């Protein structure tokens, strides 16, 4: 197994344990799906295909004025703010894997030298609440082309310093508003909001915006995600 496979396996096992107390519900045990679970998985896979077909690479997420930014910003993760993992930006590296020509790890300084862009967009949580924020960084599509990623691959997978993981489809990865974000509200990202680098993708729900990235891989093997493996729809496009 490659390292990413081994970690995926470990995380799936952990996710399973986390889901176990939800007895009596659907998706209570992802490893042993009952008939209803299989039906829901089938429909979710169908909905992934419908959403991929609906996705228009030229449709932009709405942008907002600076005075519309939500203040104070809202912290959200699968753990509380006191458990945020603090990454040292000086020693931080982004490891690259999968179908990428140049897999040398990236430093924050190197990332900051690529062309930057900013956006004021809305982050919509799968729970229904939303916030408006300003993010800045490198368009993921530019980065992928820069490192020679095979953009014909189906997935871009992310792993985080806090053991979170997620993945997106290549079309959404190449969308002009999809960023490897390094700043939030005009300042470098803070640990609670994903320092030093997070994914910011306004064409998907909040949980598809992994924070504190440590690995990026381009692959044709379905990578899943922390919430996705527990039953949340994988595509989750907006």
């Amino acid at each position, binding site marked *: 197994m490659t390292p990413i496979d081994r970690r995926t396996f470990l995380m799936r096992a952990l996710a399973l344990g986390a889901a176990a107390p939800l007895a009596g519900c659907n998706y209570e045990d992802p490893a042993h799906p009952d008939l209803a679970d299989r039906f*829901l998985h089938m*429909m*979710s896979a169908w909905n992934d295909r419908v959403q991929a077909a609906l996705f228009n690479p030229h449709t932009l997420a709405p942008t907002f004025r600076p005075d519309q930014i939500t203040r104070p910003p809202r912290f959200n993760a699968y753990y509380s703010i006191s458990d945020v993992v603090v990454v040292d930006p000086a020693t931080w590296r982004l490891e690259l894997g999968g179908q990428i020509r140049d897999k040398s790890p990236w430093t924050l300084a190197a990332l900051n030298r690529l062309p930057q862009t900013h956006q004021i967009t*809305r982050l919509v949580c799968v729970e*229904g609440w*939303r916030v408006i924020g300003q993010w800045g960084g490198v368009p993921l599509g530019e980065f992928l082309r820069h490192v020679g990623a095979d953009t014909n691959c189906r997935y871009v997978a992310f792993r985080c310093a806090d053991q979170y993981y997620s993945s997106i489809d290549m079309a959404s990865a190449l969308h002009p508003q999809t960023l490897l974000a390094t700043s939030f509200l005009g300042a470098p990202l803070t640990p609670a909001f994903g320092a030093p680098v997070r994914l910011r993708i306004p*064409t998907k729900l909040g949980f598809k915006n992994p924070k504190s990235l440590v690995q990026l891989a381009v692959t044709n093997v379905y990578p899943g995600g922390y919430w996705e493996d527990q039953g949340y729809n994988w595509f989750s496009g*907006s």
Partner: protein
Amino acid sequence: MQRSAPKRRAIHPWPLRLMHWLNALAIIMMIGSGWQIYDASPLFGFTFPPRVTIGGWLAAAIAWHFAFMWLLVSNGLLYVIWTLASGHYRKFLPLSPSSVVRDLRAALRFNLKHDLGIYNAVQKLLYLGVMFAGLVAVLSGLAIWKPVQLWFFCDLFGGYVTSRYVHFFAMTAICAFLAIHLMLVALVPKVLPPMITGGRQET
């Protein structure tokens, strides 16, 4: 012209009965899972108790909601096509404000005659009203699901935030219809068997 023996035909033809019960299933699943989804981020100062919600937690509720939306929408489209093609839509017409007032007064005095298969003005208004609420629920649902790709639906309702409220009130309207609908079936139980067996009326 000589009269032949009276023909007897179904009060509710089979396509209507099939679509009615498929719709009932879809509506129950959509409302139950929708209440669970609402509970994850309530719009108002209350949540729906777990025993009336479907899914048990947010991921499953969303999965049920986005599975049964296909049944709701495809069944609804089939109904529209069928009602136009078969001429069934004429049962909802004509509908004048004065006839609604007249029949509503009669209904509130428990004085409204119920002929199987013939809609009085109050019924016409309620059925057309719930169809409109269903349409608004679907369109506002699409606005919440796809505020970027289907931005025109989002704009139609005044943005993402308003769309959530519109979706909620469309559900409320459907629930209000269901309460009246079920209450009337309880008051006039003879209307239930024809929706299952079809029933027979003389023509």
